[in-house]
């Protein structure tokens, strides 16, 4: 993991510094040469890039990602400690939402195949998958917040503030979960195990929930890891639409602001998150699948 992170930090560190424009460029106040030199010296930007990178690594070992060059009263660690928990909470809630909506929807689509109920569930899945968050978010706000007044328009102050952003973020993934679930359930219904249970006279409800569901859910379990990773890292749009103080806004703005330290810090944190989640998925495979466990 460490060589991967080092590689990522090296590439990002170099790329962001190669971009034209600097963190102290503003339209309103042309900073004098003296002031600019003082700022560059304060943040060691007057040193060769390799030396800056070395300094960055030395700080990183101590868990310090350095000061933000744009939000100069805050360190990158400050920003992460404020914003990352918000993004993670949003991601985890959207993950649970996606499972809680996607699993029943997939089951309904499989159970009702060939009937109106199945068609309805299929349509709902298609809708979930087709509607982009950029469109869905404002639409939900317009209907449920501005129009009906059921939920707040934005911000992040109470449980009610979470409903629309979580739905916006989770609905696409709910569609994907539902699709996997439907395929899994169809396979399960065709399996000899379920056929035998049906022959034994097991009731329809028990057949679905007790016999078919555990088999049908296998693809969803496999997808859960990447799904969580996607949700944790993919909330930029939703955070912007709903004015949520998560990391997504910083992720976009830090690059635009040429906030060198922030860009590298955020990319590294995301990289660590993704690597950890992949590790968890690998371990989960090992635990769940006997073929993997026994080589």
């Amino acid at each position, binding site marked *: 993991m460490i060589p991967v992170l080092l590689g990522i930090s090296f590439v990002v560190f170099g790329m962001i510094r190669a*971009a*034209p*424009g*600097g963190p102290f*460029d*503003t*339209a*309103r*106040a*042309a*900073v004098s040469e003296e*002031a600019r*030199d003082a700022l560059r010296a304060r943040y060691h930007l007057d040193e060769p890039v390799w030396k800056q990178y070395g300094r960055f690594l030395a700080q990183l070992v101590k868990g310090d990602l350095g*000061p933000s060059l*744009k*939000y*100069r*009263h*805050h360190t990158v660690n*400050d*920003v992460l400690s404020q*914003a990352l*928990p*918000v993004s993670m909470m949003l991601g*985890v*809630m959207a993950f*649970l939402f996606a499972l*809680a909506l996607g699993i*029943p*929807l997939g*089951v*309904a689509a499989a159970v*009702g195949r060939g009937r109106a*109920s199945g068609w*309805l569930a299929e349509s709902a899945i298609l809708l979930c998958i087709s509607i982009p968050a950029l469109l869905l978010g404002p639409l939900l*706000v*317009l209907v449920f917040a*501005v129009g009906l*007044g*059921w*939920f*707040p*328009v*934005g911000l*992040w*102050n*109470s*449980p*009610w*503030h*979470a*409903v629309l952003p979580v739905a916006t973020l*989770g609905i696409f993934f709910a569609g994907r979960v539902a699709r996997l679930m439907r395929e899994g359930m169809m396979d399960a219904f065709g399996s000899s195990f379920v056929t035998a249970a049906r022959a034994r006279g097991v009731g329809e409800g028990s057949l*679905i929930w007790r016999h078919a569901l555990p088999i049908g859910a296998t693809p969803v379990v496999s997808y859960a890891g990447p799904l969580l990773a996607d949700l944790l890292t993919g909330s930029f749009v939703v955070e*912007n639409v709903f*004015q949520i*103080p998560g990391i997504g*806004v*910083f992720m976009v703005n830090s690059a*635009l602001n040429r906030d060198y330290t922030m860009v590298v810090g955020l990319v590294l944190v995301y990289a660590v998150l993704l690597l950890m989640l992949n590790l968890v998925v690998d371990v989960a495979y090992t635990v769940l699948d006997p073929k993997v466990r026994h080589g």
Partner: protein
Amino acid sequence: MRNRAPASNPRGRAAWSGEGRDFAANRGRPLSLCGLEEPRRLGGIWVLPLLFLLGLTPGCGGRGPAPDLVIINGKEPESLDPAVMSGEAEGRIVQALFEGLTRYNPTNGMAEPGLAESWTLSENGRRYRFRLRSEARWSNGEPIRTKDVLYSWFRMIDPVEGSQYSSPFYLIRNAEAYQTGTVKSRAEVGMKASDELNLEVELENPAPYFVELCAYAPMAVVPQQSIERHRSAWLTQGQPPASGAYTLVEWRLNDRVRLRKNPHYWDAAGVKSTLIDLLPVTHPTTALNLYLSGQADVIWDKDLIPSDLVETLRKRPDFHSFDYLATYFLRFNTTRKPFHDPRVRRALALAIDKRRIVEQITRGGERPAGHLVPPGLPGYVSPPGLSVDPDRARALLAEAGFPGGAGFPKFHYHFDSRKSQENIAVQIQAMWEKELGLRAELRPQEWQVYLNTQSQLDYDISRSSWIGDYNDPTTFLDLFAGGNLNNRTGWKHEKYDTLLKRAGAEPAGPARAELLRQAETLLVEQEMPVVPLYFYAGMQIHDPRRIEGIHPNLRAEHPLRAVARRGARR
């Protein structure tokens, strides 16, 4: 439109109880997917998403009491330190936290006594004697004295600090030399304390607007002890003592800045709201939705109003448009051919129908600009400038050696890649093509690259704008003095610089105004390193029946201490 905004309550957490009741009421309805054959068996699972939401949101519970006033303030403040801040969104908060020797009057935006209760000006217009209020206190109760002012001001010109807005201090004798290191001794800089309450400031030249600059955020008085103890974290470690009407309660990035009334403020009785939340919102649609749903009381400026909806919103009684001290203009890179030739620059300017731009594109009440300095400054009238005249434009172009545009080299129109800028660029491109036969290639760039390109003079024609820092023509005219870091045109004209210098030596009055007018005439009628396109209009949204203390003025100065909500939020 229905508003279900929360009623005020002491804890804030239950602020959304209105929505809670509605939501709970709907939770009782059947939530199963209609048409499914197994609604009873599957139905229970449909409430799972909702249960997850309710069960897993303890971390986003409400924080603290409900504010009296919620303002949508624009982008997240980069800093609340007068030495670091550079934008208007920050400036509003800084001025609420830290006061200068003067402060802005909420009605007309002009300076009035702040921490200084009075001042006198010497006959030559160069020496001010300020007297501080003996009752002026920091929010921790400590008195504010001249040493605090001197610390704050010397900090702004200290080369080590790297202050972004030190230029207002260059009016003070030797301040610029001190920052550049030419002058080492503080004693040689024109600011001295006579005693604890009396301060003497000596200017390089008479500057009638100096008292107004003293209200400007970079000249605010900041707490030495806090800054020296916490260094760059002085605004985030604990609560820094404030010299202004408000103290900083909380600054949560991309969430809110919360201010509380400073009980030790010398004019605490005149401070209208006790607790104010300023929201850093940058998406106009989100801003409007927050306002319409009653989550916010004021939308502060035009960038937060969806441009597509301006026509509709203008008809509402809570939409306010007013003249604003800001100009949109084009810069020519006068170091490049053929834009080094004033005839070419004038020809391109004369071919632009500015009225069409404000009527068909911006549509927010802007006015076509013939000159650079917006109208409305007391004691100053700009020259008329050039109006659209395609025939004269063609004649000038021919005179410059490009009849009908023949032989004119390929050139770029440079702008930052926002949709609004692109619309203007396309319109101007079409005008030049139609009237002069010149085809400009559009060159949009991402913001930081755009700034870099402009300051490196790596463009042909570049779109620009400027907001005045104080109520005086020099806030615009000084930009194009030779050597000004904000010039960014490569243009340097001896006569222009001389006129500005002569005006700088004059006290306020008709003679000074005439010299400035001559300089502006040279700028916008003869030399034209810039083409003024339109004067901005300020835009705000707030309901005057519910919000008091916001008065239109040229500088859009609306001190927070005067703003308050009448009654509970909708």
